[in-house]
C-alpha cells in the first residue's frame, strides 16, 4: 500500500468545499427548582468542543464514535440546523449563514430512519417533489422527480410515483429519501447512520448507491456512523470523535489499520470477528459532555494510562493535566494523543516536515 496512492485517492481536489472551523456547540441543561433558587447554574453540555473538519469535492468522510460523542450534533451544525456557539461552517469559503437557503439546496441530509423521514400520507412523488417546490427550481417537475428516483435506483421511476411509504421495503424507503435529496442536485450529502436501520443484506446496496453517486456526480459525503466496518467499506477519510472533539483523523487506510490514538484502537478492538473475545473492552459508560475531564479528555478510560504505558513513556502527567489538539504525525494523519506524539513524534517531524503545535 503506497502512500502516494493513498494521497491520490483521498485528494480528488485540493480545495475544501465544506469546512467547519473550530466549531463549538453547547447545550444548557435544565435547572431544577431548588438549584434555580439557590442560584446554581444549569449544567452546560459541550456537545461539540472545538472541531475543524474540511471536506473536499468528491470526498467521502466518515465521522465515527460512540453515541454522545457529538458526531450527530456536528453533522446537524454542518447542516445549519444547530447554531455554533463559537466557530463557524464555511461553504466554498463563505459562512453558510450568508445564504442559508442556497446552502441548503447544495447540502442535503439523509437521516437514519427512512420511515420517519417520509411523510406516511404523501406519495413518493410528493415527497421527492417537495424540495423542488420549496426551492422553486426551474424545469419540468415530473421529469426531475423521475430522474432523481432513477438515480437513487428506484426504476422504473413512474412505478413509484403513486406509492406510499408503507408500500415500500426499508431499502426502497431509504432510496426514496436519497432521491428526495438528489432531486436538488446537491454538492454534499450528510448522511447520519444511513444504513443502521436497514437489514444487513440490503445495506450493501445502499452503500453502493452512495459510492455510485459520488462517482457519477462528484458528490461529497459526510457519513456519520458508529460502524468502523462501514467506514472501511466506503470512506476516503475517517475522523474519530470522542467527547466533542476529533481525536484522530486521516486516510481510512491508515486510521483503520494503523491507528495512533488508543481510543481508535479500542473502537477497532471491539469490532466483532471470528475467534475474538480475547479483546480489551473499555470500561464504563460513554462519557458525559457536561463533565469533560481535565487533561486529555480520554485519560480516565485510556488503557495506556491505566496500564502504565503512558507512565513508562513519561507522558502520564501530561495525559492527566494537559489538554491537546490534533497534531499531524503523518501526511494527512492527525492525532490528539500525548503518547502517540512521544512515540511517533520524532519520525513525524522528519517525515512530514511539520512541527507539533505549540501547546504540547
Amino acid at each position: 500500500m503506497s502512500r502516494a496512492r493513498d494521497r491520490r485517492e483521498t485528494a480528488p481536489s485540493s480545495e475544501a468545499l465544506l469546512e467547519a472551523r473550530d466549531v463549538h456547540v453547547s447545550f444548557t441543561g435544565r435547572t431544577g427548582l431548588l438549584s434555580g433558587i439557590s442560584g446554581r447554574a444549569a449544567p452546560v453540555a459541550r456537545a461539540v468542543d472545538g472541531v475543524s473538519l474540511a471536506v473536499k469535492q468528491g470526498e467521502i468522510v466518515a465521522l465515527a464514535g460512540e453515541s454522545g460523542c457529538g458526531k450527530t450534533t456536528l453533522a446537524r451544525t454542518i447542516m445549519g440546523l444547530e447554531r455554533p456557539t463559537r466557530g463557524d461552517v464555511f461553504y466554498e469559503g463563505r459562512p453558510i449563514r450568508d445564504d442559508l437557503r442556497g446552502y441548503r439546496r447544495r447540502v442535503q441530509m439523509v437521516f437514519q430512519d427512512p420511515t420517519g423521514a417520509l411523510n406516511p400520507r404523501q406519495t413518493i412523488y410528493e415527497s421527492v417533489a417537495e424540495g423542488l417546490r420549496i426551492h422553486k427550481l426551474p424545469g419540468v417537475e415530473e421529469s426531475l422527480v423521475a430522474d432523481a428516483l432513477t438515480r437513487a435506483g428506484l426504476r422504473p421511476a413512474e412505478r413509484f410515483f403513486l406509492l406510499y411509504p408503507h408500500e415500500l421495503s426499508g431499502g426502497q424507503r431509504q432510496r426514496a429519501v436519497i432521491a428526495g435529496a438528489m432531486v436538488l442536485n446537491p454538492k454534499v450529502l450528510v448522511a447520519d447512520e444511513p444504513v443502521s436501520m436497514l437489514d444487513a443484506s440490503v445495506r450493501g446496496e445502499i452503500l453502493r448507491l452512495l459510492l455510485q453517486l459520488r462517482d457519477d456526480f462528484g458528490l461529497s459525503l459526510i457519513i456519520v456512523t458508529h460502524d468502523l466496518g462501514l467506514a472501511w467499506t466506503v470512506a476516503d477519510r475517517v475522523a474519530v470523535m470522542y467527547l466533542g472533539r476529533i481525536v484522530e483523523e486521516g486516510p481510512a487506510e491508515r486510521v483503520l489499520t494503523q491507528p495512533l490514538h488508543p481510543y481508535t484502537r479500542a473502537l477497532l478492538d471491539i469490532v466483532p470477528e471470528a475467534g475474538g473475545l480475547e479483546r480489551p473492552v473499555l470500561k464504563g459508560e460513554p462519557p458525559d459532555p457536561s463533565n469533560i475531564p481535565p487533561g486529555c479528555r480520554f485519560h480516565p478510560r485510556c488503557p495506556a494510562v491505566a496500564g502504565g504505558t503512558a507512565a513508562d513513556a513519561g507522558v502520564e502527567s501530561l495525559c492527566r493535566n494537559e489538554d491537546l489538539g490534533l497534531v499531524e504525525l503523518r501526511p494527512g494523519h492527525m492525532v490528539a494523543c500525548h503518547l502517540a506524539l512521544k512515540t511517533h513524534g520524532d519520525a513525524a517531524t522528519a517525515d512530514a516536515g511539520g512541527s507539533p503545535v505549540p501547546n504540547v
Partner: protein
Amino acid sequence: MSLLTVNDLRVEYASSGGWVPAVRGVDLTLDRGQVLGLAGESGCGKSTIAHALLRLLPPETRVRGEVFLNGQDVLQLKPGRLRAVRWAEGAIVFQGAMHALNPVRRIRDQLAEPMILHGQRSDKEAHLRVGELLEQVGLPAKRGADYPHEFSGGQRQRVMIAMALACDPALLIADEPTTALDVMVQAQVLNLLKELQEDLGLAMLFITHDLSVLVEVCDRIAVMYAGRIVEEGPSDRVFGAPAHPYTKALAGAFPTIGDPIFRRAPAGLGGDPPDPQALPTGCPFHPRCPQAFDECPRVDPPLFRAEEGHVAACLLVPDDQPQGVGA
C-alpha cells in the same frame, strides 16, 4: 439427550388476509453448555422462534410441532407446569432493556419476584440472592435499592440478564440482547454473557441479525430465511466458508477492516426479504440469488450436507444426500 430439541416447528400469525406463516418447519437441537446462534433479517422468523420456545406468542397464533425442553414438550404443557418451566428452566433476555423493567419499583424487588413466585426461595433468601446476582453481572450489590431510571442502558440490560438468571435456568434465550446498545457497551454486555455462559454452563440460544457477533459467541450458527433454516453448521465454517448464497451475502455485510476485498466494495443483495404471504415458488431465495439457475424457481431445496456437521438448503451444495428436514 439434548437440553432443547425443536421438531418441525411451524408458527402462523392471524391477519386480515388469512394465516401468515412466520416459521415454516424448523428443527433445532441444543446441548447443555452449548451456544447456538440464530441469524437472519427482520421478518425471517427468528424472534418468533424465541417466543414460541417459551410459549410467549399472542393467543391468536397457530403453533405446531414439538419443543422439548428438558424432556417435556413445552407446547403441550398445562398452564401451571408452563409457569414453572418459564424462568426456572428457560429464561429470555429481550432487546428492549429500556422498557422491560417496571419504572416505579426498586430493582431488588423486581429481581426477587420470580424467585419468590416460583417458591424457590423465601423472601429473605431471595433478597440475599439479589445481591449475588447483581455482582455476577458486574453491578455493585447496593444498586439493588435503585430504580430503573437511575441505570444506564447497558446497566439495565445487565439487570435484565441478572433477572433471567435468578431462577438458575439451564437455557438462556438472548433475543437481540445488544442491539439497542452503544458499541462499547455492546461489547461489554457480550463479554458478560459469554463469561456467564461459561461459568454457569448455560445453554444459550443467541438471536441477532449481526452474524459477526454470533461468530464470536456461538459454537454453532443457524441462518434463517423466510421462516426456515437455510444453513447450519460450526460458526467459523458458516461465517468463514458459507455454503448458501444468502449466508455469503449476509457475511459480506460485515466487512473485515483492513481487508482490501471489502474496500470500496460494499457487498449486498438486490431486492428485499420476501413477503411471507406471497413466497416465491421453489427456493424462496431465488429471486435475489446471484447464483440462481433454471431449477431454482421449481425446486424448494431441503438441507443438503455441505461437509461434516454443516448443512445448507441450496441446490448448489454438492451433496446428493438430503438430511430429510425442511420441506
